[in-house]
């Protein structure tokens, strides 16, 4: 790839001070570093992943609203957490967390307990109770 071929397709990096650094060939055929703000196929790949997460979260949200799952299930999905991962962050057994994915068990939790979940997910208790 030549220096002038390094893609500059604005994507998620553009507003930050992070850049992709490419190694590309200059006019003399020597490799050099060229910063890039992004490349279309890569931006598309990332968009697809996030679209998929949003879709999954929407499905779970409907289940929460229908009373089949607790809001915790929804927040796990939007934060890309698995039950196993939440268990290792909080030291709460997986079995207990799984129970809290059910609306009845979740409704009985006091604020002190909810705080543990909220803290790991970096949200407030109020947000944790909502979807």
């Amino acid at each position, binding site marked *: 790839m030549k220096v002038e071929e390094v893609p500059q397709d604005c994507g*998620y990096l553009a*507003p930050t001070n992070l850049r992709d650094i490419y190694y590309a060939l200059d006019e003399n055929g020597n*490799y050099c*570093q060229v910063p890039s703000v992004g*490349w279309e196929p890569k931006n598309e*790949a990332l968009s697809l*992943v*996030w679209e998929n997460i949003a879709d999954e979260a929407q499905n779970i949200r409907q289940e929460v609203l229908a009373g089949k799952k607790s809001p915790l299930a929804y927040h796990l999905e939007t934060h*890309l*957490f698995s039950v196993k991962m939440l268990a290792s962050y909080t030291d709460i057994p997986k079995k207990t967390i799984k129970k809290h994915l059910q609306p009845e068990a979740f409704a009985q939790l006091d604020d002190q307990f909810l705080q543990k979940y909220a803290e790991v997910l970096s949200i407030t208790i109020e947000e944790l109770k909502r979807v």
Partner: protein
Amino acid sequence: MINFEHKPAAHCESGVTTNMLNYYGIRLTEPMVLGIGAGVFFSYMPFITLQGMPVVSFRPLPGHIFARVMKRLKINISTRRFLNENHSMKALDKLVDKGVPVGIVVGVFFLPYFPKEFRFHFNAHNLCVIGKKDDIYTVSDPVSLELNELNHTDLKRVRFAKGTYPPMGKMYWVNHVNSTSPDLKAAIIDGIKMNCHRMLDIPIPYFGVKGIYLLAKHMRLWEEKAGARKAALQLAQVIRMLEEIGTGGAGFRYMYAAFLQEAAPILGKPEYLDLSKQMTGIGDLWRDFACEAARKFKKRGENTLTYDQLADKLVHIADGEKQFFTQLRQSIQSI
């Protein structure tokens, strides 16, 4: 704060290693570090998942590039992991107070200066802590154009991220450097030999060139086995690993080409310039694969390739890499 020159780099680990060596008076480029560290790899492990997708990776395991480079340059280093979070912060403070730049491994999910869209539970990001004032640490992250700051709480949190490959507060640093002009030629030869070995000889089918063939074989069945949607996601995952922040383009292949170009005069082997061109060509094939793959999972345009045709492209790439590394090995053995 210490006089640490922050230079952006394509890849986090080779970038941290390059900047650290530079601090200790050994001026090498990032491609040179990658080459000595035998940093071009391929692995496809269908049995380990990240976000529910099989792991595809174009790099060695985290920490390997740093360790190999330091060993080949005969530099004395230390590495530590921790069970206790507070102990790890104290140990870090102690070194930073002494003016030692310390490399650390972190998870990016809670890394505040990363854009939200890049924050996955990915636990193998490297950065270098170079200073501390009160509660605020200054860090040199090679994928960033400038230095960044992290407070104590955030730093502790990212050092003890959980999930696949938890970093467990891992940190690494240089103890002392014997000579600022190490035997580069020997280090390059060792690095190339190891890289050829890793790409060609590992006797299980998940690694090196064999891994690319296996991915191609599995890819043919994705749509049939997992459905169109899951197949598209798996394809997107491969492209993300190929081009995610930190490969220098085409899954480190362009950076390796840059390394070979730089190695040619040091080894006194002009034919390495041709090998460099060959590697550039292989990089171009990977990029072409990424373009076609993106057209496929975007579902735009009528004439997208089938998974079979994409797999054929991978087989073509694997053939190219096999031929390339075989030739590279022959030439390095004659030195």
